[in-house]
């Protein structure tokens, strides 16, 4: 079963708007990570949030983590056309999973100029 499940599956917004993507997971985690994938390319690591953190910022990215609800959100502020990509959350259950990551199916974000 999918550990990380993103919501929505697809999101279309106008340039300058904020984009929010959500991720839910089922088991205890050591950390949660977000990745971005441009069409036909590999994934790029964006940000990692540990299980004892509630919020983290990196540039225009803001990630929150609620371990009681087993959910995370990724907010991209002031979006740009270049932010168009698929975004994936990935969970790390630590030693219990052999430090492997489990990925969700992703949210396809389209930012219209």
């Amino acid at each position, binding site marked *: 079963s*999918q550990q990380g499940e993103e919501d929505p599956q697809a999101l279309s917004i106008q340039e300058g708007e904020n984009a929010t993507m959500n991720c839910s997971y089922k088991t205890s985690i*050591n*950390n949660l*990570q977000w*990745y971005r994938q441009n069409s*036909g*390319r*590999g*994934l*790029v*690591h964006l940000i*990692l949030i540990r299980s004892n953190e509630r919020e983290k910022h990196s540039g225009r990215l803001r990630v929150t983590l609620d371990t009681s609800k087993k959910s995370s959100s990724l907010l991209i502020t002031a979006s740009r056309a270049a932010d168009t990509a698929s975004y*994936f959350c*990935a969970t*790390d259950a630590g030693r219990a999973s*052999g*430090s*492997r*990551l*489990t*990925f*969700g*199916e*992703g949210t396809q974000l389209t930012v219209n100029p």
Partner: protein
Amino acid sequence: DVKVTQSSRYLVKRTGEKVFLECVQDMDHENMFWYRQDPGLGLRLIYFSYDVKMKEKGDIPEGYSVSREKKERFSLILESASTNQTSMYLCASRGHPGGYTFGSGTRLTVV
């Protein structure tokens, strides 16, 4: 800049062929991974490796094998390619406790 390099961006192979997908990383990472990515199914882990000559099965190892003779290189082998192995293959490496660094992917078509 740290890198994970996959030897081919696009490959077309015939059914029954033995296929080698190569992945090299320059970060001295111990952990390396092979995923396949298919529409509607997300990324699925095929095999991973913690160290040289060590390998672990992922979620979908059937029809695949791997080789890790040197720390920097992790090869995925399709013993006898089939059409249902047409997919995007992604290699990644990881240092602890950070995120993965992915290669650019190999889009394999088996005809």
